[in-house]
């Protein structure tokens, strides 16, 4: 790189900035926005190629706070997946980034989430997960743990929906869980997710400082830090860099991603291989029993075809096909009319 302050396409970090956040000071979502912005900068992704999509809620406001040079669509509650699907149908060359929350995904939007994942739509789907509805002042969401307590003393009695477990079962091809407070892990995971082709679901525990960061909450900073159980240390080697250090195959799993970059998982848990679906499911279920916040890349399948691959579309974005390619000639209409006479 010619200048340390510019990335490989000659842009500065300022080119990836967004508007000023209106979320609470210390909100986990702001940290995630920061990681997203840095990820795009460090990967040298042209901001104009990115489409940011979101639903409704604190999480879904956050696309306004990073990458103003990328188009963005803040849609309706729980329906970001369908809008993202449509956007990618119209323009398959977009790099789609969906930002959602636990309410937006696991409650009102679970139907669309399920089908987006099932289709393996190429998109990074970040769930900014704090276990509560922030904008409506602190009601439980469907990812709240049994026994977690609101400030008002109300205790959650229903079991949480594990969005990662669900995503693996339904066909997501990149599934990870992280913590907004773990800068290093989240950065590597985001870079790998952006380099992956397929649905990448990242459930990022992102404490709500206003309504769910107190004693008794299982989504607080303190609780998450105490119970964080990283599966492995992650490192990411982008396609434009050489793999510097050779790791022992016995202690490192190297996953070559779609674009040629590498995700390296340095094993803290000896036997864990995130390419094994059954093992992933078993380990997540074990973590639930043990009360661990299991973080890391839980599952990855870098080779599965995406929804867009299956549609047989032309390479050019449908949105910008010239008129003569989308309006058949007069002779075609004549032929149809003759068949109906």
């Amino acid at each position, binding site marked *: 790189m010619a200048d340390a302050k510019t990335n490989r396409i000659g842009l500065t970090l300022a080119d990836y900035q967004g508007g000023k956040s209106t979320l609470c000071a210390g909100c986990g979502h702001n940290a995630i926005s920061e990681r997203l912005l840095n990820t795009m900068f460090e990967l040298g992704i042209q901001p104009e190629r990115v489409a940011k999509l979101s639903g409704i809620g604190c999480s879904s406001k956050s696309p306004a706070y990073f990458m103003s040079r990328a188009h963005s669509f803040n849609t309706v509650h729980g329906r970001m997946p369908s*809008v*993202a*699907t*449509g*956007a990618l*149908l*119209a323009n398959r060359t*977009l790099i789609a980034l969906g930002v959602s929350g636990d309410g937006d995904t696991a409650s009102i939007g679970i139907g669309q989430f399920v089908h987006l994942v099932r289709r393996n739509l190429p998109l990074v789907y970040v769930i900014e997960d704090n276990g509560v509805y922030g904008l409506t002042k602190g009601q439980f969401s469907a990812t709240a743990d049994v026994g977690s307590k609101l400030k008002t003393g109300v205790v959650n009695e229903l079991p949480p929906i594990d969005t990662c477990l669900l995503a693996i079962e339904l066909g997501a091809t990149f599934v990870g869980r992280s913590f907004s407070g773990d800068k290093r892990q989240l950065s590597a995971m985001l870079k790998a997710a952006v380099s992956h082709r397929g649905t990448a679901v990242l459930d990022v525990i992102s404490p709500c400082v206003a309504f769910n960061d107190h004693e008794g909450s299982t989504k607080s900073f303190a609780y998450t830090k105490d119970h964080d159980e990283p599966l492995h240390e992650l490192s990411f080697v982008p396609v434009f860099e050489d793999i510097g250090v050779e790791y022992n195959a016995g202690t490192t799993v190297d996953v070559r991603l779609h674009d040629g970059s590498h995700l390296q998982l340095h094993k803290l848990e000896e036997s864990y291989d995130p390419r094994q679906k059954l093992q992933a499911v078993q380990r997540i279920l074990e973590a639930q029993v043990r009360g661990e916040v299991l973080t890391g890349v839980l599952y990855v399948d870098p080779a599965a075809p995406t929804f867009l691959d299956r549609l047989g579309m032309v390479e050019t974005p449908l949105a910008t096909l010239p*008129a003569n390619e*989308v309006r058949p000639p007069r002779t075609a209409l004549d032929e149809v009319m003759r068949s109906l006479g």
Partner: protein
Amino acid sequence: MTTVVNDVSLQVATVNGSGSQSANMVLLRAIFQMGVPVSGKNLFPSNIAGLPTWYTIRASKDGWVGRKKEIDVLVAMNAESAKEDVASLRPGSAVVYDEPLALSSVRSDVAFYPVPFDKVVHPISSEAKTKKLLRNMAYVGVVAQLLELEMAEVERAIGKHFAKKAKALELNLAAARAGFDFAKAQLKKTDPFVVRRMDATRGKIIIDGNSAAALGAMFGGVTVVTWYPITPSSSLVESLISYMGRYRIGPDGKATYAIVQAEDELAAIGMVMGAGWAGARAMTATAGPGISLMSEFAGLGYFAEVPAVIWDVQRVGPSTGLPTRTSQGDVLSTAFLSHGDTRHLLLLPATVEECFQFGWEAFEYAEHFQTPVFVLSDLDIGMNNWMAEPFRYPDRPIHRGKVLSKEDLDRLGGFERYRDVDGDGIGYRTLPGTDHPAAAYFARGTGHNEKAQYSERSDDWERNLARLERKVHNARTALPAPVLQGEGAEVGIIAYGSSHHAMLEAREQLRSEKKLDVDYLRVRAYPFHDDVEAFVKNHARVYVVEQNRDGQLAGLLKLDLTAELVPRLRSVAHIPGLPLDARSVTEEVAAREGR
């Protein structure tokens, strides 16, 4: 007995799932090929097999193709409904029936033609399932002989229908011939109805409205189609899948489109929103329950200003209602679909020609006005077969509306998404992926200023809402203008959509039978063109004819008209679930006019 030539309504009563559809299409085609104006209407249950179903074919020398209440010739194949079907006939009608039904004792003032259909088809096939199907083509032969249809045209119609199935073709030809021969040898005609060759269908086509809409969309350059199956709109997209597979695949085998079956109507319209925002010509097709589900997204499309085309092939509501019956019951709710001050552009096709025309034009309006456009068809237009003039190729090139390219942005330096630069209420937009640092904007359903930035300021909100109101109001002169027939009468009638066919006939009945001249204005779009108010001004009393309970279009008119004109409106609203018939309109208007 005076022979009645080319004015007959034939009804075939069968059981759903018995395979009578091919036979009915052959009858329809044979009459069409004889140059006689004809229409066919399928009255079917929400069921796959076992419930009664009726198919009505009307041949009319005067070209009336709306539903006729009275049945002249009944083909009774269904034991369950036969007695009631016979009882409802007028004296002098004719009944062809399956002999075991023993209907001739039901009444004595209609002509009965018993036919032992099992015996008739027995020599053709020994296989029970095949025989059951061939009974249908046997009644075609019987009816052909009784109505004096030209057997050569019947055979030609069978040939067209089974063109790709040699064995079926042979069997069906034999069955029709067997029916014809039986009737000729065994039945003595005692009813007056016959069909004779005319020259009134030359150059015309036969097509259903859903297929016409699909063709329109294809020639409109649609690129993204999302849908969730729902009667009666499913065949629109299925037809589109078929046509696109034929005409929109490039030489490299790649599709210039995507068609996606969504998980529900929420997702179908959501995908259309995403695709429209990203620059595709995107559409979905649905019916009442789907429209209800799409309500929230409809408001987003209006407010974030996203082009979209939504076909609503109306069935009967409220709720699940009558899924396989027709109505115009979604007009009022769709005009304002979604919460807050939402108002949409509606197109109201009346014919299959207009299904085609509005099919492509809807994209022009949607992209020009940057808003969802709802095309309100209905089951009668959409699923029934209609005679039509061959469709006219789009007469203007595709225009994508105000979209700024990279080069535009180089020249301008930047833009503000929701600024009314041209004074028409329509801003300029950019598409995601446009390679320019100033291209992006933040589309949102939340309050925003002209730069598309979040805003809760009263002045921003009021300015934006006023601009949206102006934009939609301006559309009234660009959308299809109403069509006027007649002038100078004291009484006017306003109708729209499929009511048109009954209206044409009713207007003639009012003139010839009731000595009442009425002028007729057919409304084709909402917001209303200025000609609509002018029409009401020019008539002392204006009847608004439509197929719903509450007089929904009349209600929309009352909101728009100046106060002194409102008392001139009279609602003529019918909702039997069946296509509107002329007689109902004629009698009601005549009675209210004291005729």
